[in-house]
């Protein structure tokens, strides 16, 4: 018997809306220019789109270009085949001058002093955002065209506003996903977790395709939860659209396929009765084929099986997961500095408590009505972990597409862990840890290591 439709969650409490908007604004000040991860490269890509150059859907490189272009410029030329090489060089020089003016090299341990540099390869050799699919940059380029400012730093700040909008939307989706999930944890706690999580808050002021990737997957997750509840076709349509768009944004967004596919299977079961497994298998096959086809067009996907196995081996190695945890918890100065080690130890303990609580909560009778939604969220989160493993390198932000799932499950687990007479301690302990996390990252991370540029 299908679960009864769950009443929609109440609107976000006013304090959560105010808190989210306030910290989103704070983050704009907190993060000095170009201190968001890889911002120079992403800004470069978006600027070329804003200038009216359409990116190619795949890289069209010519070896002969290496004679006149540096490796990073060569990749940009591959993404924009018609773009004049002089324009590529000029744009990099312009952004390098802004990097220099922003004192980035004093704030980032490993960044070179860009004064005198003639290409991005002086910062880090051979790196370019041009390898990314064009989805985010088309939106960012269109947004940049509306920018009333000319200066590079002002335009970067303008583009960061787009990230802030994505951040606010994702916090709202996290809140509403938790509302659909039900369970012991209040949805407002999940919203607060998504809003104050330092590295997610940082994305409110970071120019990076990750901000759109997480929005698309969060949307797919939310509409799938709605669809599981009321079976309206519009949710399936939106989930399918999100899943279709996702591979064009970033490979980490491919997890949007999961909620869409699960929802489609549920609809097939309702519509076709006994034949649904056959149709379900066909759908699954089509989904996998579609995902592989979409992924193969992306340059971040391994070119062959041996390369894929190599990446998987790297991805499953312990250092990769340690790096994932480190950069999820808080890493500043282009991942150079982290939160204090004593807090990392505390976070591990909290994570273990939440995991134990989650296992207990999933099995409890009271969670029976939440179980389909719980299983969907667990599936989305596991898929995101699998994508990180397949990528072969970890960063906390690669998990953010599954943020609604991660935050809702974490809060669900935390509240489930504090059962019986201990339950009243769940909310204060959660509030203590969350504000401690936020404030440590703000003070030690953003202020000490980025704004104050420790020891420079």
């Amino acid at each position, binding site marked *: 018997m299908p679960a009864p439709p769950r009443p929609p969650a109440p609107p976000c409490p006013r304090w959560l809306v105010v808190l989210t908007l306030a910290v989103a604004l704070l983050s704009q000040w907190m993060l000095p220019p170009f201190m968001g991860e890889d911002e120079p490269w992403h800004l470069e890509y978006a600027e070329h789109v804003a200038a009216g150059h359409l990116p190619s859907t795949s890289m069209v490189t010519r070896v002969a270009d290496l004679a006149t272009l540096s490796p990073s410029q060569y990749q940009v030329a591959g993404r924009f085949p018609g773009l004049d090489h002089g324009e590529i060089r000029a744009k990099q020089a312009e952004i390098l001058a802004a990097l220099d003016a922003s004192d980035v090299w004093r704030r980032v*341990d*490993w960044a*070179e*002093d860009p*004064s*005198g*540099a*003639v290409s991005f390869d002086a910062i*880090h*050799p051979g790196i370019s955002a041009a390898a990314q699919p064009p989805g985010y940059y088309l939106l960012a380029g269109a947004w940049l065209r509306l920018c009333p400012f000319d200066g590079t730093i002002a335009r970067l700040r303008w583009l960061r506003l787009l990230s802030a909008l994505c951040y606010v939307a994702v916090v709202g989706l996290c809140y509403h996903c938790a509302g659909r999930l039900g369970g012991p944890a209040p949805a407002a706690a999940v919203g607060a977790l998504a809003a104050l999580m330092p590295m997610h808050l940082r994305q409110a002021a970071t120019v990076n395709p990750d901000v759109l990737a997480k929005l698309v997957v969060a949307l797919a997750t939310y509409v799938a939860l709605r669809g599981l509840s009321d079976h309206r076709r519009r949710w399936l349509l939106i989930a399918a659209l999100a899943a279709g768009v996702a591979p064009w944004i970033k490979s980490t967004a491919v997890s949007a396929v999961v909620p869409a596919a699960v929802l489609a299977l549920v609809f097939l079961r309702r519509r076709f009765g006994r034949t649904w497994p056959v149709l379900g298998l066909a759908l699954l096959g089509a989904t996998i084929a579609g995902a592989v086809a979409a992924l193969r067009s992306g340059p971040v996907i391994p070119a062959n099986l041996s390369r894929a196995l190599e990446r998987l081996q790297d991805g499953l190695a312990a250092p990769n997961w340690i790096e994932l945890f480190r950069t999820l918890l808080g890493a500043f*100065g282009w*991942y*150079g*500095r*982290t939160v*204090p*080690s004593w807090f990392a130890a505390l976070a591990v303990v909290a994570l273990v408590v939440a995991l134990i609580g989650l296992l207990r909560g999933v099995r409890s009778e009271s969670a029976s009505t939440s179980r389909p939604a719980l299983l969907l969220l667990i599936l989305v989160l596991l898929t995101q972990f699998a994508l990180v493993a397949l990528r072969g390198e970890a960063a906390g932000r690669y998990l953010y597409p599954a943020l609604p799932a991660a935050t809702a499950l974490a809060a669900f687990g935390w509240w489930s862990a504090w059962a019986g007479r201990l339950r*009243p301690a769940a*909310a*204060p*302990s959660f*509030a*203590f*840890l*969350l*504000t*401690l*996390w*936020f*404030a*440590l990252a*703000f*003070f*030690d991370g953003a*202020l*000490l290591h980025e704004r*104050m540029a*420790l*020891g*420079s």
Partner: protein
Amino acid sequence: MRASILIAALAGLLVAGIDFVLRAADLPDVAVRDRPPILVAGDLRGGTALVQTLPVNGQRLRRVEIAVRPGAPLGTELGTLYVEGTAGAPARARGRLVQGSYRGSAHLRFDFDSPQLDGSGSLRLGLSCPDEAALVPWLRARGVTGTRWDFGRKPLGPGELWRAVRPDLDRLSGFAIPMANLPADAGPVVLEVYAIPLEPEGRAWTRQPILSSLGLEGSDPGKHLRRVVLELPPPTIAGHLLLRFEPIELSRNHLFALRLSLPPGATTVGDVDGFGFVTLHGDPSELAGWSTTRGGRSLGPAELHTWVWTD
């Protein structure tokens, strides 16, 4: 319930605030960070020293910490740091392995009895550490560094060495050359820089393979541009020698010849990519520090490597 949540949240803010105040109160005056790992220094000889020059603004030297990869338990006494730049004789202190201040790695900590600085605005540190396992080779700098140029896979011997270099940046102002076996009484290292004339077609680089493979001995290297004489500072027996000169404004894509005269017994030392040297660019005063340690592996790219506290 709301009150307890509010109190808990305020407690979280308070703990973070205390942590911040404690850290901010103990910030060093100087911090030298590393470069990207393309310049990881290689396996220097056992018992060799680390040399580093740092600018300082304070009046008295209080403390120095150097990040290391520990080969001994925390608390172990390890190594001796000599410091030139203090009034009178060089200051020296024994090191003690302590937990790192900002990251999980270990530091060698040297506490001084606050000797007066000599007012020169810089300190030269020399670290000798007989324990093979204690230190990590690492090359680090603050300043504008250019391309790394290979000597080849074999160390260069003593005597007069010629090499050609074509920098990728303007304002060439020096070279960092990894050396070993340089006792203080061995005599100076002399570097001379010549401009090699461009071919009429501007294809200067086509001469580079010839210069590299055949050397320039006996040939006319072109116009003499710069000469640097470096008296070796004690207790240097290894490290990157910094040979700085007034910047050559237009150096990008120009071809230069170097003549390096080494004292008897000196050899270059390699890094993970073989034997090479690095071009330095810009104002010589912009270079905040340069040094090597030993051991063959790098610390994480994020690690700060040397801190100095002064009063």
